[in-house]
């Protein structure tokens, strides 16, 4: 999986406009899961578009960024639930999932609803 932006303006467009936060279907059609997750992390960490695009699968999160404390992580997970329309169980939350951007992305992709995955694989 490439960490390069697919569409360089996708992130900026997503956050700079008044796109409703919870319109998941529209997001799904225009941005990859990786882009959407970067967008949420940007909102939590206060990153600009360039900083967000420099996030790689190995970028450290919980335990690596002092400002990302437990309350911020809780807010991050809640926002992921809302924007991806998934449920994150308490047992799902572990160090591996939270430690890197790649770990979080793998978790979200695994949790995306089966029908969405099926559509994605059909297209691929």
């Amino acid at each position, binding site marked *: 999986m490439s960490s390069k932006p697919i569409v360089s303006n996708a992130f900026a467009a997503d956050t700079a406009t008044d796109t409703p*936060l919870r319109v998941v279907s529209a997001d799904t059609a225009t941005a990859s899961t990786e882009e959407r997750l970067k967008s949420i992390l940007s909102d939590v960490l206060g990153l600009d578009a360039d900083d967000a695009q420099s996030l790689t699968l190995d970028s450290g999160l919980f335990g690596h960024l002092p400002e990302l404390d437990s309350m911020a992580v809780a807010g991050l997970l809640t926002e992921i639930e809302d924007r991806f329309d998934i449920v994150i169980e308490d047992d799902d939350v572990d160090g591996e999932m939270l430690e890197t951007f790649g770990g979080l992305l793998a978790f979200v992709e695994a949790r995306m609803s089966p029908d969405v995955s099926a559509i994605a694989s059909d297209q691929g």
Partner: protein
Amino acid sequence: MEVSTWSPARSQSDGKGSKDELIVTFDKGRTARILILPALFDEANKLRRFTLTVMRALDEMGIDSALPDWPGCNESLAALEAQTLEGWRADALQAAQSFGATHCLSIRAGALLAPTQLSGWQYAPLDGPKLLSAMLRARMIAAREAGQSETREDLLERGRAEGLTLAGWPLGAPLVRALESAALNAAPAQTVIDQSAVGGAGLWLRAEPDENTDQATALAQIVAQDLAGQTGEEA
């Protein structure tokens, strides 16, 4: 802007209320007077500057506003663990009456305290279960990091019985129990303002407190335009 004090509603005999709490006001005796119900707990800190920026913008648009501290919050000498949702609701009503509020603007979980008698706005309202859930999740993540294991069920059971400290906030048992089922007020006269109408991402998401003048101005403009519309209808 003026910082003064106000007197919450409750009796002092049980030690749960407080004699004086701080209140920030922009008061020039104008027609429109808005009581601000701030976000609660962690979000209150993250949105404090945003909230004041909204009030400054409202002031420039010719609208008075007041932002009270609730007992147990901010500079209050009352204990947070002694506070209840019902108590805060009574305080909010008292604050509205003493300021002579014509409207209220609640921010996030502040909507849980908004007097239903008042018309106004709820900015990105958050209900009790969601508020509690995020705080429980934060506590469980911190516990796991410290090598301990806590479950939501165990924490809630303890919280209902004897209170619980969540993300550093000591909540009494009555407050935990109330938040578990605290739905957003069905106040027909209060309009919900979604974050999408304000633009960008909500500042409560930020790991560290931030400010955003554009968002604050946008929120104040929505309120001011709504007020102008209401006045026009009355006239």
